[in-house]
């Protein structure tokens, strides 16, 4: 379980996250919605320890990410897919995926490669195993990014606007893969602007507004007239996103 309690994050004078509380149970898909700059990505970066908290506490399966040993364990339990892929450019797709399993999980190379090839096959990239990121399209790079995360067999998958840098066709490819993962019961924390998709795969939707988590509702209720839509800010956000 991922638990965020009264999480605060400050960049200089600006309070980016204000007393955010969030729980993600194993098997859940939780989508974080909110306008740009509302703190969604920062929250993900606090969970995976790329940002240090200014206040509050985050635990992943009980491991406190603000302690050194806790962070190691928390990072072992989760894996992140990034908006801009963040692949290692000097390594092939296969090497990108096997690096952490070999170096961190200490898997034998052959086993790590077999695991990576199976994942690449699953996302339709078996033929690109030996290609370098530069030789791949954005959508293909992001699929490699997803394989890299899955190769760690994480309990939690953190997805930080993973389709924002992709064109609509590539977005479709990536979303289909995520839908399949959700159907398999993969636990996901999903920061996105793909509202319809979020509605389709999420158990819960939380809404961040200027660093405050103002709504946390089961998906159906979030989109109900007497639920999330009753909050003016959310109604405004959703209608604006639909227009775009």
């Amino acid at each position, binding site marked *: 379980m991922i638990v965020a309690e009264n999480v605060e994050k400050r960049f200089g004078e600006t309070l980016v996250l204000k007393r955010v509380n969030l729980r993600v149970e194993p098997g859940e898909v939780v989508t974080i919605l909110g306008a740009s700059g509302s703190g969604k990505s920062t929250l993900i970066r606090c969970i995976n*320890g790329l940002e240090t908290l200014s206040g509050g506490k985050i635990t992943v399966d009980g491991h406190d990410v603000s302690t050194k040993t806790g962070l190691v364990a928390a990072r072992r339990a989760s894996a992140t897919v*990034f908006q801009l892929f963040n*692949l290692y*450019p*000097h390594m092939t797709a296969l090497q990108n995926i096997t*690096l*952490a399993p070999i*170096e961190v999980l200490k898997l034998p190379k052959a086993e790590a490669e077999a695991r990576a090839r199976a994942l690449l096959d699953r996302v339709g990239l078996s033929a690109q195993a030996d290609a370098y990121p530069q030789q791949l399209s954005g959508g293909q790079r992001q699929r490699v990014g997803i394989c890299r995360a899955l190769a*760690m067999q994480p309990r939690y998958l953190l997805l930080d606007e993973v389709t924002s840098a992709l064109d609509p066709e590539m977005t479709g490819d990536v979303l289909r893969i995520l839908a399949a993962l959700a159907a398999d019961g993969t636990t996901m924390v999903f920061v996105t602007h793909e509202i319809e998709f979020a509605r389709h795969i999420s158990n819960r939707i939380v809404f961040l507004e200027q660093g405050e988590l103002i709504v946390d509702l089961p998906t159906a209720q979030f989109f109900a007239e007497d639920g999330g839509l009753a909050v003016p800010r959310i109604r405004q956000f959703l209608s604006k996103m639909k227009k775009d």
Partner: protein
Amino acid sequence: MRYADFTPYDIILLLQGLGVTLALFIGTTLIGLAIGLMLAVVHHYRIPGCRPVIVIVTEALKNSPVLVQLFLVFFGIPAFLHIRMTPVEAATLTISLNTAAFAFVIFRSGIESVDRDQIDAAKVFGLNRSQILRLIIAPQATAFAVGPLVGILVNQLQVTSLISVIGVFDLTKIGNILNLRTLQPFIVWAVIGLIYYLAAKALAHVGGRIEAALRKSVKWGGI
């Protein structure tokens, strides 16, 4: 045969001078690259108090004449610390540090050329500092650095000629001796210049081969 004529033995003298020049060049290059790399890594990890010291010292070394540095080391340090220093020791120390200063700047740029985002990814996947340095930063920084390093080293090879001034018997010093004996400066210095030229070309060629090999093994589309 007059005393002032060129003799076959002069070729051996030239080769000896070339040997001294190359030995000193290779030695100072290895020491300089090692120190430069170490400084770049220390700089990268922001070890408290080290950054300003490294920057000030390397800036001083890069922006003052090597001949002045050589005089400071050969005449200044022994006088100040009351120690004895041979010309070869002074030459090795001076040129090693000078090479280190330039190597530091190139290695630092190489390290900084590696995108922060990749390092974030590596951290999140649980790689520790030394794994990130070895597996993510080093290969990319090296491919970035080889070209500029070869350029600097070709220059440092020429700079070694300055050590003849404090009495090291390098190629330039041999040229001086031959010149004084034969009084044929045009021939002597043309030959000496040609030997430096050929050595520099050979070095650039080897460097180019190394760079090509590195880029082949990391054949991603440009850095």
